């Protein structure tokens, strides 16, 4: 009897100790993430324009109303959709293609896997700089050397508004395709070989085995890649910022960059906060829909 009455106090003591251990992490998370998030929501309801400080004051939903009539907002939203959609599709398609090729290589897979990690471990800002200074500049850049040698002429890859968007999409795809390649390769390597043998005996040719067996069986991996890469592409920043800064003009200004430029170049903190809140809402909505879709499948 004595022992059982001991137990609640001991349990309580342990729980209190656990709480103390948990507290630092909780505080860091709260100060680093939760507080700024609420501050952002709050700031988006104010007029805070440091270049016109005399206009500051509570604005309610005015910042959000302004967006509807802001062509630059719609432009950036459109670019965000194009950027996210195309980079995610390219990453999955190219990653899948590479993984299928590499899976057939009997030797040297390990070396290829290490090579594939390289772009991933680079900081995105380094990637942006590297492309801007070594690959894409006209005349002496690597890409121009190739196009000139092929007789396709020199192009201003980051200066031409249309090419600039293609370039930043290429940069992102270059850096992150290896991630989807590695995930899909691991997923393919783990598929049971006898199922494919059964399909061969069941008269399915290579294409049909791919469509009816391979793709459905690696669908969970692809779903996870799409979800993760969408989240990242929606909030992409550093590589584009380093390569084009959102330009030329607003040619590569995705929503995240527009929010940054509004807040820290134009110093319109209130409107910038509202743009960031919209981006957050879109990201949350997309991830919610993707996870629901995944569960349904």
């Amino acid at each position, binding site marked *: 009897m004595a022992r059982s009455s001991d137990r609640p106090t001991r349990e309580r003591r342990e729980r209190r100790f656990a709480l103390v251990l948990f507290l630092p992490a909780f505080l860091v998370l709260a100060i680093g993430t939760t507080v700024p998030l609420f501050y952002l929501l709050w700031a988006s309801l104010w007029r805070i324009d440091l270049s016109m400080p005399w206009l500051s004051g509570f604005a309610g939903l005015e910042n959000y109303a302004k967006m509807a009539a802001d062509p630059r907002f719609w432009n950036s939203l459109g670019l965000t959709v194009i950027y996210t959609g195309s980079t995610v599709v390219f990453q999955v398609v190219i990653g899948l293609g590479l993984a299928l090729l590499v899976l057939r290589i009997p030797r040297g897979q390990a070396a290829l896997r290490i090579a594939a990690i390289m772009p991933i471990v680079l900081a995105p800002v380094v990637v942006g700089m590297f492309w801007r200074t070594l690959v894409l500049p006209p005349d002496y850049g690597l890409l121009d050397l190739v196009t000139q040698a092929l007789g396709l002429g020199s192009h201003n890859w980051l200066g031409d508004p249309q090419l600039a968007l293609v370039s930043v999409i290429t940069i992102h795809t270059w850096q992150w395709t290896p991630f989807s390649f590695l995930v899909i390769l691991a997923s393919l390597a783990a598929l049971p070989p006898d199922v494919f*043998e059964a399909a061969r*005996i069941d008269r399915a*040719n290579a294409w049909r085995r791919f469509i009816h067996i391979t793709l459905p069986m690696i669908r969970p991996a692809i779903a996870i890649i799409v979800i993760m890469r969408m989240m990242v592409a929606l909030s992409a920043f550093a590589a584009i910022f380093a390569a084009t800064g959102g330009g030329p003009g607003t040619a590569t200004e995705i929503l995240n960059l527009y929010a940054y430029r509004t807040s820290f170049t134009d110093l319109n903190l209130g409107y910038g906060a509202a743009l960031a809140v919209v981006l957050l809402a879109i990201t949350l909505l997309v991830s919610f829909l993707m996870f629901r879709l995944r569960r349904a499948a």
Partner: protein
Amino acid sequence: MSAVGRVKLQGIVKRHGNVTALHGVDLEIAPGEFFALLGPSGSGKTTTLRILAGLENANEGRVHVDGADVTDVEPGERDVAMVFQSYALYPHMTVYDNIAFPLRMVGTAKSAIDSAVREAAAKVRIDHLLARRPGQLSGGQQQRCALARAIVRKPRLFLLDEPLSNLDAKLRLETRVELRKLQRSLDVTTVYVTHDQEEAMTIADRMAIFMEGRIVQVGTPDEVYARPASVDVAGFIGNPPMNLLPGRIAADRLHIGDHMVALGRDLGAEREVTVGLRPAALRAGPTGLPAKIDLIEHLGDTKLVICRAGESMVKMRVDKAASFRDGDDIRIGFDPGEIHLFERQSGRRL
């Protein structure tokens, strides 16, 4: 008897790097036959089946089905169906879609697929599970689904790779009987790989026994049981298998230790032999091989008396009423006609 499904393997050699898995396998299987490939693991029986299916290529030799050389033909074009040890069901498809898959791959009409799937599922009694996925089925149900997928296309050859090995003992015995009935009703040539000699003995019309990449004997279960071609086969067939004792032939008599037997037939020159005696052919009597009982196993309707005779262990199957005790000294008697003799050096039957 079915007219199609005649199989002929000619000099099949299979090497994996430096290891030779099959050293020239020759085999003929008649249409409609239930043929077992029996052998211990690593003996080459599964490799032989896979070469017959077209999943692996032989380094040498030819594969003929119904007179046509199919050595270089893709598995899908050989008109064979296979049940894998792991069942290899398509995990993302329902049972219905699994069974329908081989028909869909050749563009069979939808209505024909539907009736074929339902007929195949009914034959193996899983027609109530068509909407489920493999992950929602028990082991036995998955096995039936794999069978249904194989029979739905009415192939000329039915290949089974240890199909019962993942089932529990009771289900294995039931399914064995059903499999045999199913094969009879379909009348399709069936090649069945197993390491379980009892399974092969009970289910097959004929069997080939594999040892270390070679076929050592081909015959009906009765033939193989009555006249094992070598010591290896003798030690593999029967439950428990034959007792194998060292012996010597001298002056027309067989010597087992100090015990002497007159066999009443010409034994040829003096030499060392291995003597094979089935446990059921032995009995304790006033005369015979002296032995000491080590252990008695009760098997229900019979007892297995395990005793030591000289250097060898001898198993004797006796009636459950027989009264023996551990440690008893007995004499093991047998009819000379029950003796199997093998040459010591080569292991061949004499």
